[in-house]
């Protein structure tokens, strides 16, 4: 297979299958305010959005839209002391693995799981107690999936929340890290793409991951240095030390991600400020 030969060559110069070094994350772009934010004063939860963000990590592209805080439709869902956070993750028919089936977010188990993970990860950071009896809806649409869907979704959600002006304790940044033995040497890599994930977890079915390969998506609050989410399903014979190393690398990856996100936020802030002053370079859509 051609790709196998290419990766063999690349691994000789210690590069990964897409030409990255082991400690490089994918090229990441963030665009805040991708969708026009409308005034969300109306009580209908179906109108408009307060903030949005479009994040791409390598070939994975995710769009996130935040609505709220607004009125809860059903009284039974109201919480008296904090806001309800609702997260929906959707895939699109054109996002790979392009089998053109849209998984129903209410029944597909992976989407339910990812929605729930996103919800708990964000609820550790949003100051929900400032908005009792209201609802914040976060909708994530996966436009292209090349691995790292969950991490990109978390990053996009954080940016969209910041765009919507919802107070956060800290930015929640997510990155994955993995480890496998390539040619007898243990390699810890950051930000895996889909092919690497499949190789690490042996998702191709027969025979689970060989021991010592790890794929670990992690979400952290980098400025506070705390882990907010971590999932790992590979068998490790080294025990906790190997895991600790990979976790460390993942947290460094999150730090890198945070820097990119913070730069994007500052840029957006500068753009909005300029528009207010009437010196806009770019036409902001109303």
């Amino acid at each position, binding site marked *: 297979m051609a790709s196998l030969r290419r990766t063999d060559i690349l691994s000789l110069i210690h590069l990964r299958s897409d030409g990255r070094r082991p400690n490089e994350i994918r090229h990441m772009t963030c665009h805040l305010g991708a969708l026009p934010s409308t005034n969300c004063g109306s009580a209908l939860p179906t109108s408009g959005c307060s903030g949005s963000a479009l994040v791409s990590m390598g070939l994975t592209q995710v769009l996130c839209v935040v609505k709220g805080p607004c009125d809860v439709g*059903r009284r*039974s*869902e109201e919480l008296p002391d904090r806001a309800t956070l609702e997260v929906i993750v959707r895939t699109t028919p054109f996002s790979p693995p392009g089998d053109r089936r849209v998984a*129903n977010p*209410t*029944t*597909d*188990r*992976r989407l*339910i*799981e990812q929605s*729930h*993970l996103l919800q*708990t*990860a964000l*609820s*550790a950071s949003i100051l929900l107690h400032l908005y009792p009896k209201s609802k914040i809806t976060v909708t994530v649409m996966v436009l292209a999936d090349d691995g790292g869907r969950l991490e990109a979704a978390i990053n996009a959600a954080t940016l969209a929340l910041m765009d919507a002006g919802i107070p956060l304790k800290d930015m929640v940044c997510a990155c994955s890290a993995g480890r496998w033995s390539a040619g007898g040497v243990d390699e810890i890599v950051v930000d895996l793409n889909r092919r690497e994930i499949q190789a690490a*977890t*042996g*998702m191709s*079915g*027969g*025979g*689970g*991951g*060989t*021991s010592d390969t790890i794929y*670990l998506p992690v*979400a952290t*609050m980098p400025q*506070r*240095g*705390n*882990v*907010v*989410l*971590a*999932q*790992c*399903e*590979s*068998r*490790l*014979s080294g*025990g*906790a030390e190997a*895991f*600790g190393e990979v*976790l*460390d690398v993942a*947290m460094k990856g999150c730090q890198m991600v945070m820097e990119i996100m913070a730069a994007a936020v500052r840029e957006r802030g500068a753009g909005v400020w300029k528009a207010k002053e009437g010196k806009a370079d770019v036409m902001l859509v109303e």
Partner: protein
Amino acid sequence: MNYILPRPDSTTLSTPELHFLRTTALSSTPHRLSGRSPTESRPIRLSFSRSHNKAECTSQFGNTRASASVRGELIPPPNMDRPNDGQVKFNVDVGPMGVMGYDVVTPASNYNEGGGGGEGGGEAAYSQRLESNRLLRVLERTLLIGGSIDAEALCVQSGVWVWRLVVDVSLVCDAGNCLDACVLAVVAALRHFRLAQVDVMEDTSSGVAGEESFREMQIIDSDEKEPTPLPLHHTPVTATFALFSDKSGATSTVSSLIDPTDREELAADGIVTWSYNKYGEMCCLDFPGGCELSMVQLMSSSDLGKKRCIDICEMLETALMEAESKAHEERMERLKHNSKSLGIVTTISGCDDDDDAMNIDNEHSDSKAKDEEYRKLALDYASGHIAAAVKDRPLSFGSSKKPEASSLFHAFLHSVKKAQTVDEDMEIDALVSQDEQTAKHHDNVTQQKALDDISKLNAITQQQKATEPKPMVMLGEPNSSDEEENVVQLKSEFCSVDNDNTNNQSSISAAVVADQPQQETAAAPISSEQKQAKQMDAAEGEDVDDLAIAVKKKKSKKSKKKSN
């Protein structure tokens, strides 16, 4: 409907409960509602059964019960890209039996034929779906993706027939930590399951030349040919912690409680699940967030989880060996029967379980006794501190009243003495530090509770014989016994957190004791005995291990006094 229904789900927690759970969990010496320490889990009980092409296991963590059953089917390979791969299908059913307020829904499964479920309505359905989904995903990730079941080993004939293992998990009762219970039940059932031998029939159909001929397969009954165990690479088990973080942000301490109960889960901020196998290899980490953890805290919880998992694995191995030998015996029995009776099949389909028709009475009372024992071990919140001496006194339903009466009476005296000592202790030590007091209370309360349990048990057996309205009548009896009873109740309000149980038991024990003819004489000796007993108790301290011995001691002392 002109009345207001409370929310029909179990996801609400009253404010005092929430406040109490959080403050005690976050205090410098974390306490729990049941008296366990943060690193102590509930005792586990496993029960197995096996029949042809099927294995079952029910795991009990205290009140949480989960049941898993494994069966095998022969199917053509589901994925033609991988003709050698079998399939493992998990069906997770979390229904109204397990949790109050849940609806009956089709179980969540990882291979869904046909359309998915319909719309969920409302809060309860959403949390139900989340729960069953989480169980399903963790099972999938720990067992399938983590690599303990090898799909290729399930192949019978490449490209033609493969095994499909259907694992049905149902949550029988959820009292917290249903994830651990379900995973343990599934893993134990998979280990206990035996794959039947398959017989290839003669190829009679005329296939097209060059094609793989389609042969009929027949599963041979387990009694004819010995079935084989499943090829599992390793046996992972999970340990779950509930995390409590300081919401005010004043400190960054995070309390982690292992094996949370349902109240603790509701009050918790986050949950982390570690999965290890018996070699200490990490199999899975599921930390869905909700609470921030520093790296150090995460790693320390992993160490705790590892220890716990290794303990569970050892226990699982012993339980499996017992179950295996039992199943083997049963199989021998069946074979003997089959050879005796001329070809008449004794096995009813699907009923080859433990309860044979012949032994059902013995088995029934046996299992009831075992149930009671486990219940007291698991739900008697003093399990770590006192060995319940129930084994010394065989539970005999319907034995003569007299010996039980005197022992009951003495048990009551003993408990009352304990109550008195604790009461006085409370007054004196009012200013002493919290920890000391609570520790003492725990011990005393637990002792009293153990006694109450036993007296309650005996009381129940007596009540089965006696008439119903007796307890009602007895509560209005002369003040002496009532006073004692009141004293007991007051004390328990303050330091025992298990109000209802203690109250019930003390009222029942008071009621039964009041039934005895020695009631009048009870008042006088009690007060005089108490003072003596207090010194004795202080001397004995908390090492009253064997209740029977303690009761006998009291009896001999009392008889001495009477002679004086």
